[in-house]
């Protein structure tokens, strides 16, 4: 059975801290791994990773995939209160186009 596991489940940091969110996966016919940020309702797309070792970067956020060890990390540097959200990791297989989501990491950035 395919599964995606995120850690930690919740995290509280101070503004300016750097955080690393983890996502491990076991997915048959793995195609890609996606990261989303969810603040209120709809998850907002952050990154899609398909190749090992290639870092994707957007501002203070970056992510990388390790297909040998079956995990990905999402880094956020110089955190701001606006980064407070649930960060979702999802795996996408070649056997379909639906996503298998982890439980998410709830991040709270305090002033």
């Amino acid at each position, binding site marked *: 059975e395919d599964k995606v596991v995120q850690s930690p489940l919740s995290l509280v940091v101070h503004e300016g801290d750097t955080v690393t969110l983890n996502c491990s996966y076991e997915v048959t016919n793995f*195609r*890609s791994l*996606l990261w*989303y940020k969810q603040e209120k*309702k*709809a*998850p*907002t*797309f952050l990154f*899609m990773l*398909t190749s090992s070792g290639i870092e994707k970067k957007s501002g203070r956020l970056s992510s990388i995939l390790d297909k040998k060890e079956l995990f990905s990390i999402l880094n956020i540097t110089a955190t701001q209160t606006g980064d407070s959200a649930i960060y*979702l990791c*999802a795996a*996408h297989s070649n056997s*379909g*186009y*639906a*996503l*298998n*989501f*982890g*439980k*998410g990491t709830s991040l709270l950035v305090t002033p």
Partner: protein
Amino acid sequence: SAVISQKPSRDICQRGTSLTIQCQVDSQVTMMFWYRQQPGQSLTLIATANQGSEATYESGFVIDKFPISRPNLTFSTLTVSNLSPEDSSIYLCSVGPEAGNTIYFGEGSWLTVV
């Protein structure tokens, strides 16, 4: 990216009634999906909405409870039937893969059953 509109964004319904959620995309898309997110939980796939044929349901979800329509490549509806408080969730429409296999989500429909 595709622009996905969902209606209603929020509703409060009486138990035993039904609610139909609409999902409209601004371009033709091959794949449309419906997800449920129960309070404090992650997203769970309900079904894949297939254009011109019956939806493909995931384990634990049945057509009688969650009938889905997909009359064309830009529109789908999800009905949640015979509502109970356990159906209180966010229901999300998603489309994909678009260019680069990215999958996008609508704004979600927040259902509360009383």
